[in-house]
């Protein structure tokens, strides 16, 4: 087993997982709900990026911002349709989980209708996947680009949440919606912004995932959805930095279990970890204080 190569693989895959899981974590930290339609938005992001390249024959670097914008708008619609009515009624968190499942079913089925169920690819030649030379391990330019974009987006998000007034407002709403409202923060707007950001991150992750494996179906979100759950549980539900760490950990676990020859069990290993973390460390691996005790 070439350890360096596996570490390299784990790092760029971890970037995509972290990016995806950040959206989950963001929504959970601000609204306290689990958005199971996040993976459907991820898939839509990938298809929007693909459409930009194939239908409108725009350059591939434009696919990412357009997909982020499109997926962000889907995120806002998702909030308006599936979450806002329940929030107004003060429905239990579980109801919102179920409505997000309904939204996910809807989004996946509309995608089947719009894009068909056959795997689709970016046109050949658009992705730079000739391995870079002169390195002790194999890595393609696209993998480097994926990692760089993931890291830049994570840094931007971190900056937005921790250093700007909007981020301050988001954290205030996350801490206590009522008090934030009394202080003049428009919590409805913050919720929509949160869904926009989560959707945009999912969209970016979708395009990057699509570029990495170059095969997109309406069901591509399914596998990632459950892995993303593991990532945020590992990082502590709603913990944004934790989600980044968790993403790289899950990717490493997956890559190394494949390299160790147990590719059949790689998902079982990931889910067993999920199970054990929930039982023994519900606050996540990096969490210190117990917020919502399970």
């Amino acid at each position, binding site marked *: 087993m070439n350890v360096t190569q596996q570490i390299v693989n784990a790092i760029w895959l971890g970037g995509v997982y972290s990016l995806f899981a950040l959206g989950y974590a963001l929504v959970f930290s601000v609204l306290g709900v*689990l958005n199971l339609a996040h993976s459907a938005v991820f898939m839509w992001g990938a298809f929007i990026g693909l459409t930009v390249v194939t239908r409108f024959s725009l350059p591939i670097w434009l696919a990412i911002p357009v997909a982020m914008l499109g997926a962000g708008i889907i995120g806002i619609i998702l909030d308006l349709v599936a979450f806002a009515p329940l929030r107004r009624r003060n429905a239990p968190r579980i109801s919102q989980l179920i409505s997000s499942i*309904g939204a996910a*079913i809807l989004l996946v089925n509309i995608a089947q209708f719009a894009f068909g169920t056959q795997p689709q690819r970016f046109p050949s030649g658009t992705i730079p996947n000739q391995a870079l030379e002169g390195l002790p391990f194999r890595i393609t330019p696209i993998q480097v680009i994926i990692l760089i974009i993931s890291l830049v987006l994570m840094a931007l998000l971190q900056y937005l949440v921790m250093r700007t007034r909007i981020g301050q407002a988001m954290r205030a709403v996350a801490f206590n919606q009522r008090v934030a409202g009394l202080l003049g923060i428009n919590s409805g707007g913050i919720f929509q912004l949160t869904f926009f950001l989560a959707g945009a991150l999912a969209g970016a992750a979708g395009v990057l995932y699509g570029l990495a494996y170059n095969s997109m179906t309406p069901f591509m979100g399914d596998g990632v959805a*459950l892995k993303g*759950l593991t990532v945020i549980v590992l990082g502590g539900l709603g913990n944004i930095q934790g989600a980044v760490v968790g993403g790289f950990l899950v990717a490493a676990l997956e890559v190394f279990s494949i390299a160790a020859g147990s590719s059949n069990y790689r998902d079982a290993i990931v889910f067993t970890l999920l199970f054990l973390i929930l039982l023994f460390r519900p606050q996540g691996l990096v969490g210190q204080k117990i917020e919502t005790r399970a």
Partner: protein
Amino acid sequence: MELLRSIGISEPVLQFMLINAILGLSIYLTLFTGMFSLANAGFMAIGTYTGVILTQQFGLPLWGGLIGGMLLAGLIALPIGLPVLRLRDIYLAIATIGFGEIVRILILNFDPLVSSIVGQPIKMTYGALGISGIPQLTQTWHLVVFLIIISYCIARLHRSRFGRAMAAIRQDEQAAANMGINVVYVKNMVFILSAVLAAAAGVLKAHFARTIDPGDYGFSQAVDILAFAVLGGTTTFVGPIVGGFVLTAMPEILRDFKQYRGIINGVILLLVIVYLPGGLVNPAGWARLWQRLRGKSSFKPVEAETG
């Protein structure tokens, strides 16, 4: 039967409707006790594979497979439930999703795994191919009788001391514990009952559908089972039965719109959870919706939602 056939419900569809009603009831038990568990598809898989292997490879009659499947699912539910049921709402949901996936992957890799332990090649679950050519043993009347018996038992359960304890735990676990209810015992018993019921539905289903594979018992099956109960409502046990019937029959009745089937299912689930939080079988919910549509505000205090 003629009437049903005229609106597009043939006998196989009726069988699926009955099975899905039983599955809806299995998750109803846990939801009614305030536990949001998505493990039913996993227990259904365990029960089904056990039952099918018993009838097909060991030549047992249907009831033998049924009892075997139910027994194993119940036995596995006990060690799973004890630690997992300490978790609440979203945490319980995630843990049980994880359990379902682990079961599916283990069944997928069961043959090579057991072969390597025993030391000789063993073919039992046939991996991703699944098992086909399962003997056709389930008759429609079996399902009808089974559903009636289960409904009767659940109706009786609600009137019993145990049933009252279930309702109390859903309302407030802490208060229930203070009243002297053994919360851990009740929750685990309900979890086991739910698992056993899901297993029974799975065994019965396999013996008329005649093929099974691990993909049938993934996350989407878990969500489908949940949808039956949520659509029908979990205020009474009639809800999940109606939910199972409606969601299964709908695509057949609306056969002309088959390609929109998934879209329709998603829309229905969203509409019900947003506008009819108590599900279809819930007069109070319909009344509230009616009032809202007429633009009148209700004077009644908003009741605590369940499920």
